[in-house]
């Protein structure tokens, strides 16, 4: 196999990885950091794509579409948090109920989308400014993919900075584990959680809008992406953005090269990777092992 093929396969895998990371980053925030299991995260990704499709139809501008995707998904996310998710917090078996509730969101959003936009798939095209391709030596990469890779890097650096270097980040980190303590400090914890949910779903929506030109927009796409995103978040170690980035690249590349060497089994590789990782590192790759709980 020639070197060129390997390089272009690698770059292809990287773009897939970055798209995956865009979705998984929102999930890392809400599931990893805030400890809310949002099974419907992929559905917000799908909603983002549909909103951007709708906005592009109206305004004929890709960037307005992206904005609409993010804001629309974020707003719906916040409403759902306030109306439902918030009200079951603190319950016994909260985790199971969160899974169930957000699973219900998946079903409702899927059918809602079908009802509004119909079952047929939609497409949008790349913005003209990014429609070209960049050629370096023997390798060509579409400008849009480069842009996605850059966007992923911007997100991981921003998230890392906000979470570990700002006061806001400390509050966010503590809000889910030391809820009472943070409340005592005069922080409105439920407002923080709603905003967090909104930001996370907006990130999902943005990812959907960004992925739309490369993939199709159709009902059910949210369900496909959520499992892969969960894999990424879990492999990376819950709540760790760099870990999620690494895991996304791992999954992206394993898939890209898997198609070359094991074409028939490529779609199973993500699961195989997760199984291997969890068997050897029971809390993902980048989680610090915590001491035993106090008794």
């Amino acid at each position, binding site marked *: 196999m020639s070197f060129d093929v390997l390089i272009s396969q690698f770059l292809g895998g990287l773009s897939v990885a970055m798209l995956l990371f865009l979705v998984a980053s929102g999930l890392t925030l809400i599931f990893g950091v805030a400890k809310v299991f949002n099974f419907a995260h992929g559905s917000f990704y799908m909603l983002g794509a549909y909103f951007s499709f709708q906005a592009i139809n109206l305004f004929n501008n890709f960037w307005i579409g992206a904005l609409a995707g993010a804001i629309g998904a974020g707003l719906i996310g916040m409403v759902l948090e306030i109306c439902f998710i918030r009200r079951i917090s603190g319950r016994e078996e909260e985790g199971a*109920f969160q899974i169930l509730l957000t699973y*219900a969101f998946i079903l409702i959003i899927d059918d*809602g989308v079908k009802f509004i936009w119909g079952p047929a798939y939609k497409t949008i095209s790349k913005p003209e400014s990014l429609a070209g391709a960049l050629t370096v030596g023997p390798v060509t990469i579409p400008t849009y993919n480069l842009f996605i890779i850059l966007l992923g890097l911007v997100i991981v650096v921003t998230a890392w900075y906000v979470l570990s270097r700002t006061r806001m980040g400390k509050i966010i980190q503590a809000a889910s584990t030391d809820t009472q303590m943070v409340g005592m400090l005069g922080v409105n914890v439920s407002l923080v959680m709603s905003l967090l949910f909104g930001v996370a779903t907006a990130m999902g929506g943005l990812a959907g809008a960004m992925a739309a030109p490369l993939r199709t927009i159709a009902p059910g796409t949210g369900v496909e992406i959520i*499992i892969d995103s969960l894999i990424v978040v879990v492999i990376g170690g819950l709540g760790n953005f760099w870990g999620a980035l690494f895991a996304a690249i791992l999954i992206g590349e394993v898939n890209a090269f898997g198609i070359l060497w094991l074409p028939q089994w490529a*779609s199973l590789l993500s*699961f195989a990777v997760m199984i291997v990782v969890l068997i050897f590192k*029971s*809390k993902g790759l980048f989680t610090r092992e915590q001491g035993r*709980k106090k008794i």
Partner: protein
Amino acid sequence: MNHRLETTALWSAYVLLFGGMIFVKNEHAIHIAAQIVILGLFAISFNILFGNTGLLSFGQALFYGLGAYVTGMIAKKFGGDHFLWALLLVPLVAMAVALVLGALSLRLSDVYFTMLTLAFAQLVWGITIKWYDFTSGDDGIQAIPKPEFLAGGLHYYVFAFLVVTVCLYLLWRLHRSPFGTILKGIRQNPTRVNFLGLNVFRHKLLAYVISSCFTAIAGGLYAGLDGSIHPDMFVWTMSGGIILMTILGGMRSFFGPIIGVAVFVLLEDVVGRSTQYWSFFIGAIMIVVVMLFPKGIVGVSRQFAGLFAKKGDPLEHS
């Protein structure tokens, strides 16, 4: 309501209702009843893990599919006379698989356990679809033969009902056995169980193996119902559906899950036929249950019963 009274009432209701189905002449009703007892066995055995032990597996469909494929593939290859021993083989295969997968996944805590069980099930689903030569892939297996005496809806229903009843009886014994009590202890306070001198992991493993074994039997029974099975029996939405039905019925009660299954299957039969937005409908029901009736149908009934029996012994609200 008194606990013993409730148990007796639910057992009688089960036997009368599903046993009585054999006098019903309606083929469709019998088919629905067969679906309910088979999925009911799946849900109740799943609840040994979930409601009793506190282990949320998102991959029990693996064992449901496994049971169906072991039965289906053997019967298809060797003929209908081999259906029964294939069904007898199912628990053994399932227990062996569960022993390995359980040993790997039960070391993980909470969500990691959930994700690993999901991954195993998805992997097997993928393999079943891709390994066409062995499993017929996405086509599934159709026209699975059965022995002569099980042919016909009613005969097969009687058979399924008897098998399920025996299984439920065994699971019920487990539910109230010393082992079952320890499982409840593990859900509530594993550290304390450890300080009773018990190995928590081994108890979880046995619970996992037993639960998976009965789930596989349910799968095997399903293979004979319509004689048609599909890789989607392995897929995560199957596991998710069972979790939903279990909570809908009530995860803190032995019979809760099968009540959830019955309600769900009947609703699907009635509503599913008249709308193409069935998922939307299910989603709405799930939200109502989660928000307003988290203890499920059994929990709500207990509250009602408690309301009427208010003057009784205030201590008796198990």
